[in-house]
């Protein structure tokens, strides 16, 4: 498995990556990767988590079958920069509006919401209009996911 992902996994001296990471950010980007609702598919989300880890981020993984409330509480307590929600169940048009509302209630709109999974193109447009910062569909290469996260955090700026 390791060899397949060597495009962004940097083998090298221990701590080398750490130093590079420190040079880039005062602190690693923190991201919560969450699975919400009745959706038992977590292979993809684990690959995404691993890719983000290898890009030097602190990745919190929620585990399966979380509620939107649990996920937003976790995002607040962990003070993540990005909340990435993977949905393969087709419930995205119900769950994302709920997440956005809960983030607002918790005064946490500075947390960047990113969606991932299998969704119709029309829904992607609708999701972005309601405040999902980015939707990364199936077949998105891991390095694009990493770049997107970095770009969104850079665009938001310090908080």
């Amino acid at each position, binding site marked *: 498995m390791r060899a397949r992902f060597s495009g962004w996994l940097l083998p090298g001296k221990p701590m080398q990556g750490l130093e590079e990471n420190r040079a880039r950010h005062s602190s690693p980007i923190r991201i919560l990767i969450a699975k919400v609702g009745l959706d038992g598919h977590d292979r993809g989300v684990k690959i995404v988590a691993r890719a983000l*880890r290898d890009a030097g981020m602190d990745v919190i993984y929620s*585990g399966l079958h979380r509620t939107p409330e649990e996920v937003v509480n976790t995002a607040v307590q962990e003070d993540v920069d990005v909340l990435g929600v993977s949905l393969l169940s087709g419930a995205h048009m119900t769950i994302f509006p709920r997440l956005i509302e809960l983030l607002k209630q918790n005064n946490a709109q500075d947390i960047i919401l990113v969606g991932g999974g299998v969704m119709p193109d029309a829904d992607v447009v609708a999701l972005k209009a309601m405040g999902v910062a980015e939707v990364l569909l199936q077949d998105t290469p891991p390095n694009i996911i990493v770049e997107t996260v970095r770009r969104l955090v850079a665009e938001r700026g310090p908080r």
Partner: protein
Amino acid sequence: MSVPKPSLQLVAEVLEGQARSLSRLISRAEAGEVECRPALAEVYRHTGRAHVIGITGVPGSGKSTLVRGLALAARKSERKVGVIAIDPSSPYSGGAILGDRIRMNELNSDPGIFIRSMATRGALGGLARASLDAVDLMDAAGFDIVLLETVGVGQDEVDVVQATHTTVVVSAPGLGDDVQAIKAGILEIADIHVVSKCDRSDANKTITDLKMMLGLGLREQTTWQPPVVPTSGETGQGIEALLTTIDEHRAYLQQSGELAKRRRQTAEMRMLKTAEDILRQRFVGRRDGVAAELLEQVIARDIDPYAAAQRLLAALHEGEAK
């Protein structure tokens, strides 16, 4: 882009127990931002109330599951519980997967529980650098109990004992024999021993080995005797008993005057460690100057590392005087 709220303005909200401000300040402490130091200094004046409990043990011994059980048990008596769960950073990329929360899912929607995952970011000893700042912040925010879960440790990561009031060492059945139990290191630091997964058939052997090890030690009769508490995350057995034992230990610390001694130890350790960190940062900042010249001399074996270190310190000192 919005303008970040100054840390000092967040302090009042932390003291009120607002989760959002608490988590923000923990992040800033973790980032080592100078801007937040006055705020943390203010927070520090409001600490000293919480009972800080360290949970340590080898990877997979059941620390996170135990933390979940303890937090739920403590909530029954209306106590607010803060959890700091530490996982390792990758030595290659600096990144980390923080997965301790997965074992604590029932705790996610209770406002009386606040869980924060932390990556070690290169720190050794089982804790992360900002762990104790996070303990302070939770203490000041009104959490009665702070559970500090270390990374999965080996035999020698014993920093946690200097940072907490009560140290719980978790052993799982099936690892090592009675000789492991008399080795120096992690097992010595326990105020309370837990044998997790006690529903397993080989747990009794681990319990016996630990008790035997404790029986071999010579200690004064009046001092605290570390008990061995069997627990099971599967059946919930022993969790209430463990919380009771922890409360007994707290009472013992207060009555015996040991608490004051431990607080003193913690304060001293933190002062020295922080001084170390500040020095290291200064050296890193001067990598191109004096440090680089001295390094060349050490590599060429003109001077030894000890002499070089002394000159480096002297150079820093001069730099300050100017």
